[in-house]
């Protein structure tokens, strides 16, 4: 019983740290990572389909490196390397460097999602459009991409959920998201299990709501098609 009363006491005192700061920063980092990832990931996906071999090779190398190394390692490198490259960053909080790393990381994954989403559209759709005399651009924009979006959106949602959980690694640099909130409150109260339980429930609630939203969106898209 003391476990639950402890949780109640912690929440009464630290709800702002968990709910406002913790969830706030976690969502902020996730949105930055996925929105930036979607933008730069699209550019990377375009580059991968380009005819320039050098560009293609560079992008592929970047994607392989990002996918082949742990996010934590990338965060360490980012937090120590970016301020060296961009001196202005060194005077700013870690969250800037952390955001940049998460965007780069997410771009790599999103570029793969977009590439495979486009490739999953039957080649015949493009051929039929081209055979009518439409340009590559028009065929891509009005036929292939709208169909690719149906493949891409669900996977992009999953990437969003993954990123929400991955932001916990940013707590290594005390940027204020949920896991940082756990570290802070645990340090003040010495109640490890209770704090873990609170953070666990909050993460679960976040991802659960997100995945339900995604399901609803998918269903609506299917209904329209």
């Amino acid at each position, binding site marked *: 019983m003391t476990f639950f009363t402890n949780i109640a006491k912690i929440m009464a005192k630290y709800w702002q740290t968990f709910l406002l700061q913790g969830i706030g920063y976690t969502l902020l980092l996730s949105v930055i990572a996925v929105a930036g990832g979607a933008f730069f990931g699209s550019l990377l996906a375009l580059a991968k389909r380009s005819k320039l071999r050098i560009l293609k090779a560079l992008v592929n190398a970047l994607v392989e490196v990002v996918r082949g190394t742990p996010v934590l390692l990338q965060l360490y490198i980012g937090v120590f390397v970016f301020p060296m490259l961009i001196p202005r960053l060194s005077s700013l909080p870690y969250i800037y460097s952390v955001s940049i790393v998460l965007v780069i990381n997410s771009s790599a994954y999103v570029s793969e999602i977009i590439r495979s989403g486009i490739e999953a559209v039957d080649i015949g759709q493009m*051929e039929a459009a081209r055979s009518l*005399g*439409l340009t590559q651009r028009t065929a891509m924009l009005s036929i292939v991409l709208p169909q690719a979006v149906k493949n891409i959106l669900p996977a992009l949602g999953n990437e969003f959920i993954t990123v929400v959980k991955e932001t916990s690694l940013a707590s290594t640099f005390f940027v204020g998201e949920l896991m940082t909130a756990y570290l802070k409150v645990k340090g003040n109260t010495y109640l490890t299990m209770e704090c873990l339980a609170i953070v666990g429930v909050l993460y679960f609630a976040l991802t659960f709501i997100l995945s339900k939203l995604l399901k609803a969106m998918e269903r609506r898209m299917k209904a329209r098609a």
Partner: protein
Amino acid sequence: MLDIKNIYKNFGDLQVLKGVSTHVDKGEVVVIIGVSGSGKSTLLRCMNLLEEPSFGEVWMEGKLMTPPDPYLHWDVIRSSKTYRRLVSEGLSDDEAIKKIKAEDLLKERHPKYEGPEYVSQMKKIYEENGIDINLGRQKMGMVFQSFNLFNNKTVKENITLAPIKIGKQRLKDAKKRGKPLDKTPDDIVNEANAKAMKLLERIGLQDKADVYPSTLSGGQRQRVAIIRALAMEPDVMLFDEPTSALDPEMVGEVLDLIRDLVKDGMTSVIVTHEMGFAKEVADRVIFMHDGVIAEEGTPDQVFNHPQNPRCREFLSKVLK
């Protein structure tokens, strides 16, 4: 109308077409037959450059759609450094050209290696005859084995998409050139819609205008695919095994529509396994074998008096 000159097509090490030349006249119906893998579909796809030929040229209504193939232009060969070297080594004009063609001496290096005269000759041919691929394709309708209707568009949108997009582009281009057309974008949309409904009526599917292709039967889809191509008012129609993916009971309705078009004088190239149909509609039959045209002639010549042993063997198997 459509001229195919010495087309080669390689997929990696695999040679699918090994020098195919033919032409299609206005109003003519050419049927291409042959075993699977003989290159007949590839030949058809090379005609509208869905496959880019490795060598050779495709001419549509006197306009060059592919890059110029130097081997088809003696002036170009004569302007190359390789030719001049060979001649200075004592070869005659004829020998030098033959050697260059036989050993493929112009293709292995960058065009610049052959000297500025060669480059400018190639450029000149393209500037005088070349046409934008998309313009050429607008004059060729293509019908695929697997229909390839746009899944994200309704039946009517499938038909109107290209006329609207291309019509609006033409409008814009005309305005840019300072010779605006006497039309508004709305006119183009209305015209395209009216034409689409007329075409749908022709095949009796006007009530399906606003449904998505996934709700249609195979035969209906293929007939919509055919009128989608017709909506661009092409000068020639290319059919790539239009009935091969259909259930047997739906083959008839598609063949009836094609027969109709052909009767109206539509120039057509048809790749098919329907020998009875081929015999009936063809003005000329081409039998492809191993990447070349092995036999070519009227249906009577090819079906009743085939000269090529491969063609005889093929016909004896399929006409049983």
